[in-house]
């Protein structure tokens, strides 16, 4: 819309008072065609307006005495506050804030983020200590919840609210008001047409109103206005509605986002085939939640992993690429009724507000350890964690209740690899070449001593703390004791310390159990935003005026003009179409001599546009 204002301004420049009057007339025709704030301080004009009040000048004259000073201070503060608010809610500042938001997002994509990839961030800290301190100071490991990033988007959203609320009221007002009356000189509008007819003016106007309404314009027959009776019509309110809906949806989206961070819970659980999980805090391997989440509110449900399926391509081009991961589970809720479900990577299980998602999988060798006295010391599946895509896996076996050959209680620890398709070379040591168990081999070292499980410190089940342990050695060679087993095989530990049997292989799957608030709101508002955007960017809001009056020669003169917010070719095309439809009601009277501009009641200078174009030169 500023384009058109500028146009009006340009044309009035250097002309007399008559043009000033015309300008305000045109401006009235344009008013409210968009609810976009008019930027008072126009760069091109040297930035006056609101900012022109200048520093320290809001208070005005200061009366002597304390009361005068206080009053001055009050005016000053109010003035600054108003000035600041006006700046903040201006389009220009919104634009700058958007720009800053984009810039501020960049570092978070380059520096590893604690919230996105914690191990990577940890690793980075270890390798770059000095730099990390600097990063830490500026919250660069946590960009998206840092003070400065939050400041930018909060300011942006305050600006957005400050802009959207008055715009919404203004728009509601427009919806209830009549379309603005026609300017005196319609031929100054961006698209214009005129012709003469013998139909009386009131009939032309009635027909025009009918036609416009049929085309779903809001058309209003008006007798007032400087140029006489006319039809004023407007269409495309949906554009503005869409724009407002889009900006409002952004606010809802931000609120939903915040809710998602305050009320979420997220936990992980590794489940071996045949075992189960019930949704209480103690059962989780790891768990975190938002500040306002109440862990007593965890959905009461549970599930059992019946079977895990995986499939991998054996084609040479993409050997080992997985083609299927599926967990068949049986789950139950509060009532206890059991149901079966399949969980796939993109297809989580929904139970109430909770979602159970398949995250990973691996193998768990089932191992039996007999102690030196021939008693059962350990039996069960031991999950090994995959290290690469071919599932080279590492793990530990901890035997905490064990009796040694001397009859004294001792503890055993085993540490090593499980490889589903075993291979060994000098460079990589034992590793796997394919993720399926074509040649499953368990490769372990053995330790005895204190596992440290009773030390009271939290223990990682996947790591062996060997600081208080001694590695077993081969009786005969004295080398470190290290062995390979395939399923079904057993091995005698040195010095009659017992046996270890690799009974069979199980699979495990890891699951992520999450609840999140505000997901529906985020989805609904984002879809509303798209809809609003489409309406806002693809629709045109425009006004059409039709005026009819009796000309000097006794014929009726019909004038039509239209004005769009943006200069789209569609606006004049639509006017042509409307004129064409009105023509049967107001047939053309031929007139050889007349050009359209000459026919108007208040003739414009015919060469005006060419002249002003030449005078203007380059665009300002």
């Amino acid at each position, binding site marked *: 819309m500023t384009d058109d204002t500028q146009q009006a301004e340009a044309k009035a420049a250097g002309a007399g008072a008559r043009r000033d009057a015309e300008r305000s007339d045109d401006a009235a025709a344009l008013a409210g065609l968009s609810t976009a704030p008019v930027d008072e301080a126009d760069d091109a004009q040297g930035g006056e307006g609101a900012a022109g009040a200048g520093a320290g000048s809001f208070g005005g004259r200061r009366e002597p005495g304390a009361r005068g000073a206080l009053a001055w201070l009050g005016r000053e503060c109010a003035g600054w506050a108003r000035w600041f608010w006006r700046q903040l809610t201006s389009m220009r500042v919104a634009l700058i804030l*958007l720009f800053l938001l984009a810039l501020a997002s*960049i570092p978070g994509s380059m520096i590893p983020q604690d919230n996105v990839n914690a191990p990577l961030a940890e690793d980075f800290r270890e390798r770059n200590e000095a730099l990390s301190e600097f990063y830490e100071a500026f919250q660069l490991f946590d960009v998206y919840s840092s003070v400065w990033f939050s400041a930018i988007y909060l300011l942006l959203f305050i600006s957005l609210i400050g802009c959207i609320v008055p715009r919404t009221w203004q728009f509601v007002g427009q919806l209830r008001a009549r379309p603005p009356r026609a300017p005196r000189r319609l031929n100054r509008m961006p698209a214009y047409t005129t012709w003469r007819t013998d139909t009386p003016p009131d009939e032309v106007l009635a027909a025009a109103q009918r036609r416009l309404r049929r085309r779903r314009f809001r058309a209003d027959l008006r007798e007032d206005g400087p140029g006489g009776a006319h039809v004023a019509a407007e269409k495309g309110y949906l554009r503005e509605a869409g724009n407002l809906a889009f900006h409002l949806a952004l606010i809802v989206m931000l609120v939903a986002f915040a809710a998602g961070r305050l009320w979420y819970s997220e936990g992980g659980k590794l489940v071996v085939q045949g075992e189960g999980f019930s949704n209480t805090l103690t059962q989780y391997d790891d768990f975190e939640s938002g500040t306002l989440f109440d862990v007593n509110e965890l959905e009461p449900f549970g599930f059992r992993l019946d079977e895990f399926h995986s499939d991998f391509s054996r084609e040479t081009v*993409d050997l080992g690429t997985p083609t299927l991961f599926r967990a068949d589970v049986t789950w139950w809720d509060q009532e206890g009724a059991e149901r079966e479900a399949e969980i796939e*990577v*993109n297809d989580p299980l929904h139970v109430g507000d909770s979602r159970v998602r398949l995250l990973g999988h691996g193998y768990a060798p089932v191992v039996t350890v007999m102690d030196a006295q021939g008693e059962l010391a350990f039996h069960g599946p031991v999950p090994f964690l995959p290290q690469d895509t071919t599932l080279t896996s590492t793990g530990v076996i901890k035997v905490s209740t064990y009796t040694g050959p001397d009859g004294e209680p001792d503890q055993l620890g085993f540490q090593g690899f499980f490889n589903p398709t075993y291979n060994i070379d000098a460079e990589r040591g034992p590793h796997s070449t394919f993720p399926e168990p074509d040649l499953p081999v368990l490769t372990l070292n053995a330790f005895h001593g204190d596992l440290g499980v009773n030390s009271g410190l939290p223990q990682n089940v996947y790591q062996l703390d060997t600081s208080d342990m001694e590695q077993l050695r081969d009786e005969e060679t004295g080398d470190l004791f290290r062995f390979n087993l395939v399923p079904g095989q057993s091995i005698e530990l040195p010095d009659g310390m017992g046996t270890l049997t690799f009974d069979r292989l199980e699979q495990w799957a890891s699951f992520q159990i999450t609840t*999140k608030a505000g997901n529906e709101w985020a989805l609904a508002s984002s879809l509303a935003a798209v809809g609003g955007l489409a309406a806002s960017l693809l629709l045109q809001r425009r006004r059409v005026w039709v005026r009819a009056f009796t000309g000097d020669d006794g014929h009726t003169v019909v004038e039509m003009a239209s004005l769009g917010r943006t200069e789209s070719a569609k606006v004049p095309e639509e006017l*042509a179409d409307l004129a064409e439809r009105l023509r049967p009601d107001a047939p053309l009277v031929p007139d050889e001599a007349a050009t359209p501009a000459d026919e108007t009641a208040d003739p414009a200078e015919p060469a005006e546009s060419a002249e002003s174009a030449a005078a*203007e030169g380059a665009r300002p």
Partner: protein
Amino acid sequence: MILAAGEELADLSNTLVYSAMAVYAIAFLAFVAEWILGSRSKVARTAAALTGEGDAAAAVPAQASPVVTVTKGGTTSVLERPRIVTRSGAPGRDDVPDGPGASGGDVRGDTYGRIAVSLTVLAFLLHLGAVVVRAVSVERGPWGNMYEFSTAFSMTVTGAFLAFLAARKNVRWLGLPLVTTVLLDLGLAVTVLYTESAQLVPALDSIWMWIHVPLAIVCGGLFYVGAISSGLFLLRDRHEAKVAAGEEVKGWSASVLERLPSSVSLDKFAYRINAAVFPVWTFTIIAGAIWAENAWGRYWGWDPKEVWAFITWVAYAAYLHARATAGWKGRKAAYLAIVGFVCFLINYYGVNIFFDSLHSYGGV
């Protein structure tokens, strides 16, 4: 799972890509010939409109004069039907007519231009064939790795160009820059990015793969067309400013710029494309978020790919605001549009290659 037939089809797809490149190369030469032959014509309409030499209205051909007759179907006669007079919105530049196009009205140049367009159509068909055959050979959407993404991306660029031509838009001036970059992109695809990998990991096997990725490709192709016309707008705008200031403009660059559409037309063309694509890009990001929610349990996690999609989105939002803000429209807005597209490129090539992202389906 992939049979030998699949590999044969993949080979056929490669052959089609190479054939398409060969035809694009000839089309490229024909476009170049069009521009060269067109340089012989003398056009001085921009200057006439901007410096007011002579009667502007007379110097300017009818279809571009400030007084425009818009007719709907059939012939126009002032005596038989009302005539629509449109007045330009902004003073000055709005009266500058569009250039005559690459051939500059030269008959032989125009012939070469037509040949170039026909060749581009042929190349596009080969290109389309390559993408379709690739899809059949891998039994999924042909956008599972960077090679496939790049091939499909340049295909949408050509497709958009031809669609604009088919809709009788004045876009033949886009032919040379587009075909050049399509050739570069395909060259990069077949040399550096080529991957034989056929299967998708399960995380990528989702209905959203059919929505999110193709939409991203289409948005990228159209944003690219928008960015090119913003770039040409900047050049042409400076040219017009020089002409208006009465500076002497000479040489091949002046001759080329003279034949482009006016700065106002270029700016509008870029705006229309970007404005139409922006909602689609918004939806693309949302589709990605829904997918991420299904696959990873969170719809937004500030993964580098997500960050750059967001930055791209914000840059284009800033562009759209700039177009509606006094003091920002024009050159500054055009820079923003180009920045937006650069962000898109960083998101695609940069993040896949240099960043540690969950989205690393790169396979470079």
